[in-house]
């Protein structure tokens, strides 16, 4: 017995008493009851398949008080800040984007008027893939799933009348993220803003693209260089900007379970940090600006435990593996989004309830910002009405339920503490496997993550089909007869043509000499791996080169990526 015994969550005497009580209870109360009334299934598991006990006691908690601790203090299990929602509720950040920049700008202003506190931009597929609206592959996609951005004038229109020093802007964008960041910087410079005052995020998490979301332009290596360049640029020029938002969300939506989501996200995080450190950046110079994005799934307690486990794992990794000194480098901050893949087309109003419960687990898990999905998610992009209900859901949780008064209210629950430990250990198990494969990039190239995700997705589909995983309205409580009708968002059919014609106008109206010179500078920077790509890209967008022109020219330098699918 060491001094450490004073930190034990359950003293040995208490644990022994609980074990004894559990044994006598199993004999006296449980056994007879079970014969009269059997349980609904033979074994119970969490959403990610962790077997769970009937009831938890101090005997199940073999942890240490120092692993739980206090919010705002290492290892940050209970939250990144000492006051959490007492100081400020989470940022209510509903993502929006469709059509042309002007249409999305209008939706943003509507959301701000409804009490939204941060902006989040969804781009259309061509923008996400770095293609212009007039590219042959863009057919039918322009302005469809998000807003179309081709050139700097689109970005100017997107932020028209929105004060970027006052509101943070999150951009869900990956392989083309650095170009959007360049446009954002260009708009800010035109308006005379102080770059150090701008707060916001680009997702820019390219590794999870190869793993899950499948948006890419270049091969892994030059893509990692671009991520590194944005991290370096922001560390020097944008004190409050998050250059990478490392995302488990898409890994989950692609089919991964909660355990895989956090394990793969941490493996990817380790790869980015190791890569940046290898180029000579001091870990404490950029790590405080790393931010995260997780799903908030259906299994309420597992989700809360997941958020706690990943915060603790990250803190330890940053301190122990990377030698971070600044506590801000060890403090994981995350955005959460409710799980789109859980929403159903039948009985769409049920989706409001699903989303509310998932949002609650994000809040109980200590999210810094939250997007709640629209009830029409399984139909199309959300209508104004659906977004309003989704935002109101967050406001009701914040103002009516009282859950914001106490930090990490489930901390100390025998079950949640035990599950937190299990999920944290699960990350370490995956790390061992990934190391054996030669690290994250090698594991991607061997299809390891892709296969793991595909297996979980298939397993889930089978459980849903057999009814083992009930989905109300789909495999249980199915309505006979006419389906409920809901109002959905209508895309303006003229939007695509308008966008293509604006792109042509911008190309025609620009100074050809400046554009040509900017392109040469960009190619020179690209060919020199020790150069930072950001300054040349900022000049390129200011010269009104389009996104497709920029990525097209760089494809000749960097090459392209093709996936060998595994299923």
């Amino acid at each position: 017995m060491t001094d450490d015994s004073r930190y034990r969550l359950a003293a040995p005497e208490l644990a022994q008493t609980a074990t004894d009580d559990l044994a006598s209870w199993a004999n006296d109360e449980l056994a007879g009851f079970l014969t009269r009334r059997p349980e609904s299934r033979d074994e119970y598991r969490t959403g990610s398949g962790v077997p769970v006990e009937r009831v938890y006691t101090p005997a199940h908690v073999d942890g240490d008080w120092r692993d739980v601790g206090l919010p705002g203090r290492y290892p940050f299990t209970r939250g990144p800040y000492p006051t959490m929602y007492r100081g400020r509720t989470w940022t209510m950040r509903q993502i929006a984007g469709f059509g042309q920049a002007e249409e999305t700008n209008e939706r943003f202003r509507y959301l701000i008027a409804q009490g939204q506190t941060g902006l989040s931009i969804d781009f259309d597929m061509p923008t996400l893939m770095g293609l212009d609206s007039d590219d042959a592959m863009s057919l039918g996609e322009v302005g469809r799933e998000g807003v179309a951005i081709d050139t700097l004038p689109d970005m100017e229109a997107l932020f028209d009348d929105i004060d970027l020093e006052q509101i943070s802007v999150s951009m869900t964008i990956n392989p083309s993220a650095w170009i959007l960041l360049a446009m954002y910087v260009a708009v800010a410079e035109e308006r005379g803003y102080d770059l150090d005052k701008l707060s916001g995020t680009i997702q820019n998490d390219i590794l999870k693209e190869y793993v899950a979301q499948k948006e890419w332009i270049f091969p892994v290596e030059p893509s990692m260089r671009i991520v590194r360049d944005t991290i370096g640029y922001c560390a020097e020029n944008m004190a409050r900007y998050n250059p990478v938002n490392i995302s488990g969300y898409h890994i989950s939506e692609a089919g991964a379970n909660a355990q895989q989501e956090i394990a793969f996200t941490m493996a990817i995080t380790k790869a980015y940090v190791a890569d940046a450190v290898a180029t000579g950046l001091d870990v404490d110079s950029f790590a405080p600006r790393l931010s995260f994005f997780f799903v908030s799934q259906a299994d309420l307690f597992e989700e809360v435990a997941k958020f706690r486990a990943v915060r603790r794992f990250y803190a330890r990794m940053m301190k122990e593996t990377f030698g971070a000194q600044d506590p801000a480098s060890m403090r994981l901050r995350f955005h959460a989004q409710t799980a789109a893949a859980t929403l159903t087309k039948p009985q769409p109003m049920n989706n409001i309830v699903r989303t509310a419960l998932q949002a609650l687990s994000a809040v109980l898990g200590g999210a810094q910002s939250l997007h709640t999905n629209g009830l029409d998610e399984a139909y199309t992009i959300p209508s104004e009405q659906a977004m309003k209900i989704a935002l109101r859901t967050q406001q009701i949780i914040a103002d009516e339920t009282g859950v914001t008064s106490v930090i990490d209210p489930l901390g100390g629950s025998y079950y949640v503490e035990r599950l937190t430990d299990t999920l944290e250990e699960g990350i370490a198990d995956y790390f061992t496997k990934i190391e054996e494969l030669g690290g994250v990039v090698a594991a991607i190239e061997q299809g390891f993550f892709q296969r793991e995700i595909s297996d979980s997705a298939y397993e889930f589909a089978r459980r849903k089909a057999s009814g083992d995983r009930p989905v109300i309205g789909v495999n249980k409580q199915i309505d006979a007869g006419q389906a409920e009708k809901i109002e959905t968002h209508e895309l303006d059919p003229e939007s695509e043509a308008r966008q293509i014609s604006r792109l042509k106008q911008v190309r025609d109206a620009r100074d050809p000499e400046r554009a040509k010179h900017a392109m040469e500078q960009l190619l020179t920077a690209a060919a020199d791996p020790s150069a930072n790509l950001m300054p040349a890209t900022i000049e390129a967008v200011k010269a009104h080169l389009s996104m497709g022109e920029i990525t097209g020219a760089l494809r000749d330098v960097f090459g392209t990526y093709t996936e060998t699918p595994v299923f």
Partner: protein
Amino acid sequence: MDTREEPIRVMLAKIGLDGHDRGVKVVARTLRDAGMEVIYTGLHRSPEQVLDAAVQEDVDVLGVSLLSGAHMPIFTRIFHLIDGMPERPRFAIIAGGVMPDEDVDALTAMGVAAVLGQDTAPDTVVERIRDVSAPAREA
């Protein structure tokens, strides 16, 4: 019920920029487990590439998965390309993914043999593929 020996040949395709491949991979495995031969094109194909490949592979069914909302323009393009072919290919075309109800009617009118959604049960997917492949296999 199909009485021929050869398994049903199905090509599953992702067209356009849409990267949502969870559903199409689950369907690929489901059909394979049901004894069918499945060819998956991978992501980011053009309508031209997919039609060429389906003809080359002599499939019974071509399933196109779209969750990007671009199904109307893409299927319009597919049927436009088919109209321009010297001979109409024998395979049946089905759609899968996220598609609003009113578009389902329009797709059917265009010539899509079945539209399967994210909540379609795996057994139903197998049944529908068997149904729609029958005329193609007679041909």
